[in-house]
């Protein structure tokens, strides 16, 4: 029997019409173009990319909040544009930093209210709420008004709201945004356990945190400027970089170094310089490990003092850098109005 994908898109695109600076004029903003994805039941699929890459637009289309301007998308085999009501029976969504619910209601009441919108009887809803509050360590806050909760605790409430309805496909859009390290770890652990409990469950996760994607996702799609640049398991994506040697060099300087100063080195694939606090982190991608000596020599010529040097295994960040030519942070800084 052919398995129906939990999420499937073909040639999916979205163009926004936005007001131009000049009055009365409109310009087009291409948020997504030609997205072709297939996510199977039981998969925890990640979308990685900087702000403005198109991740949230894709989630909005898949959750029936936005119609595509080209192509099609299906969730659990149902077209999101043609039959949104049927899709809504099967999904839920949690966004990082959302302020859903009502501050005058307690945490338990807010969750109960959302359960009503999914037709879950009060008795069963309350049992599930209790279980989820226990798991998330919020039992002692069950009767606290949500207006009195910290941002982190409110985000935990939002995450419970997403899992409460036991959706076939859950969309998590930056779910650990605003959570401290411990809380984010709890959430990741719960997400993994929830997936392991039932092989039919599917999660589409967008995140800035590459470590989170590496830890959680079975497969990831790297997306930038509305296009999917690569899609595979984190291990397979990193495998392609294994033939390179990556060195991370910490330099005792905040003075800008010219990356082109290293162009003459034969086996050098790319160099990235990032000022951090009172020093500079230099990432060097080499075809031959031995070429690091030339890099050190060039740094010495430039009178740059090396604080530390280490060879490291490639990460998803490296994959992103390889594909886009810049880190997520660099892309976001380049796109920000201040730059």
């Amino acid at each position, binding site marked *: 029997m052919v398995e129906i994908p939990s999420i499937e898109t073909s040639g999916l695109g979205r163009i926004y019409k936005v007001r131009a600076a000049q009055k009365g004029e409109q310009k087009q903003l291409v948020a997504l173009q030609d997205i072709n994805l297939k996510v199977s039941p039981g998969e925890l699929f990640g979308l990685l990319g900087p702000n403005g890459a198109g991740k949230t637009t894709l989630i909005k289309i898949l959750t029936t909040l936005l119609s595509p301007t080209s192509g099609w998308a299906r969730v659990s085999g149902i077209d999101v544009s043609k039959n949104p009501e049927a899709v809504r029976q099967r999904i839920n969504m949690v966004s990082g930093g959302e302020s859903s619910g009502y501050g005058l209601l307690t945490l338990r009441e807010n969750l109960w209210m959302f359960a009503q919108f999914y037709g879950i009887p009060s008795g*069963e809803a309350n049992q599930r709420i209790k279980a989820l509050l226990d*798991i998330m360590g919020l039992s002692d806050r069950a009767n606290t008004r949500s207006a009195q909760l910290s941002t982190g605790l409110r985000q935990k409430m939002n995450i419970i709201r997403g899992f409460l309805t036991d959706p076939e496909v859950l969309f998590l859009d930056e779910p650990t945004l605003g959570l401290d390290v411990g809380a984010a770890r709890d959430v990741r652990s719960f997400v993994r356990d929830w997936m392991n409990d039932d092989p039919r469950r599917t999660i589409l996760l967008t995140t800035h945190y590459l470590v989170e994607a590496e830890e959680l996702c079975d497969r990831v799609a790297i997306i930038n400027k509305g296009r999917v640049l690569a899609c595979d398991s984190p291990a397979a994506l990193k495998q392609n970089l294994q033939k390179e040697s990556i060195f991370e060099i910490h330099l005792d300087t905040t003075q800008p170094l010219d990356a082109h100063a290293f162009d003459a080195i034969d086996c050098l694939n790319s160099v990235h310089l990032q000022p951090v606090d009172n020093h500079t982190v230099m990432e060097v991608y080499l075809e031959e490990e031995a070429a690091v000596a030339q890099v050190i020599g060039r740094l010495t010529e430039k009178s740059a003092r090396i604080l530390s040097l280490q060879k490291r295994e490639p990460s998803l960040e490296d994959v992103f850098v390889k594909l886009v030519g810049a880190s997520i942070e660099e892309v976001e800084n380049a796109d920000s109005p201040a730059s």
Partner: protein
Amino acid sequence: MPTLPPVKTRHTGWMLFWMTVWGRSYPRVVGMQRERSWLFFDIFLPLMGVSAYVFVYRAIHAPEDYIGFVIVGGVMIAYWMNVLWGMSSQLYWEKETGNLALYIIAPGPLMACLLGMAVGGLFATTLRALVGLVIGSLLFNVNYTVVSFPFLFLVFLAAMIALYGLGMATSSIFLLLSREAWHIANLAQEPIYLVSGFYFPIKSFPFWVAAAGSLIPLTLGLDAIRQLVFASGPSLGFISVPLELGILVVLALVFLFVSYLLLNYMERLAVREGKLTDIRS
């Protein structure tokens, strides 16, 4: 870490519709009573406004029933304020807080959410209106002569369904107009006080002004209620109570139907244009 079993029961159809209505009315039925400040803002302040008219009528030696007219009118203002600020502008606020997107992706119908807001708002406002009515009546010694309680209940019910139906219809318009809607709401507030005859019988208006004002359901509802609870009410009424009741029923049906159409239109347009959420990607 303990596991979470799958959901056993998921209601659909009408059961889901009513569960959504009840779920969305809950924040207003229960939550809104928790802020005790409503006693000051929703009872004391409106009573001060009403008192000014009471003293004006007493100063000019108007018939004593006019005092009752003002008290009942003042009470009904609470409903208009709730419809204007708690219904019409509510979807806009729900959009701003992110709740609207969650309502839309939930299987419960958006119309049920809107109805839940109306039911909750009606309950919370009735609580405030009753307290205001009792205090105002005791304070100014108002005498009521109720002709028929069932008829009074029917008129009130029809007026409220029509009024909240109007609020449901305008909420979609306000959502599309976004921030401009605030100006419209502000503009609508005082003129409606005037044409709905909150502080005087609308019979004082020329016929066509009163007829135009009757498009706001509170106008006819208030006029009919006054005719049913005050001895001099019928002589100061605009048109007969049965006719007013008939018009209110028609208005209720029309506004509910229009709100259904507008909500569907708004949702389609918003999904097409990407207006339910900001252009964040």
